[in-house]
């Protein structure tokens, strides 16, 4: 799944509710909140990564590169998942800035892909023993039915 496709969901969610407020304000609020949660997760991964790299470096000498890389793989996955998530937020914001007509967007597929990608971030954090932001877990709790409905491959 491309980051722009993932990005469609956030403004659409915002558009659906709070009708007495402008949909654009709602969309921007959702993006802002989602970005704050992402920053929180990023901070946790940063601290964990520094510690894990230090330990792996001490444990595996320069002739044990593959062992070092294996030890760091879950952390690298977490960094990658966060990068995709942040790119999606920026893409969604760019859509808002462009004034695109959101009614033309394919909601169902985007919703499924959003949930799948969010689960990817969530799993990556859990794999390295970190607690994901509560916002992530709660959205996944009610959106579980959408998993597997994404026609692309979330990265």
């Amino acid at each position, binding site marked *: 799944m491309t980051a722009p496709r993932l990005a469609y969901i956030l403004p*659409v*969610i915002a558009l*659906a*509710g*709070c009708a007495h*407020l402008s949909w654009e*304000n709602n969309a*921007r*609020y*959702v*993006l*802002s*909140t989602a*970005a*704050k949660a*992402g*920053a929180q997760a*990023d*901070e946790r*991964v*940063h601290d964990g*990564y*520094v510690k894990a*790299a230090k330990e792996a*470096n001490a444990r595996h000498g*320069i002739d044990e590169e593959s062992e*070092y890389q294996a030890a*760091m793989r879950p*952390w*690298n996955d*977490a*960094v990658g998942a*966060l*990068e995709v998530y*942040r790119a999606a*937020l*920026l893409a969604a*914001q760019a859509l808002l800035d462009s004034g695109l007509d959101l009614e033309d967007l394919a*909601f*169902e597929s985007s*919703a499924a892909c959003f949930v799948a990608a969010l689960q990817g971030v969530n799993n990556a954090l859990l794999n390295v023993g970190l607690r994901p932001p*509560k*916002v992530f877990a*709660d*959205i996944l*709790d*009610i*959106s579980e039915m*959408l998993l597997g409905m994404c026609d692309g491959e979330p990265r």
Partner: protein
Amino acid sequence: MANLGRDFVITSILRLLRIVMGEVIDVLEGRGLDIKRVEQAWPEMKSALAKLEAEENRKRKKREPA
């Protein structure tokens, strides 16, 4: 049917967002709207910087004489 599913998903996610993000209630009540651009709310990828730094450290270690 697809529309029903879509509406359910939208409603559910929105309801959840309203519950989880308590600040949304504040917005609805007109008590404030803390909107930041993504770049402000999440100015840099700290974890990616940590990864770069770790890779540099590893390379430096390889270059150092044993």
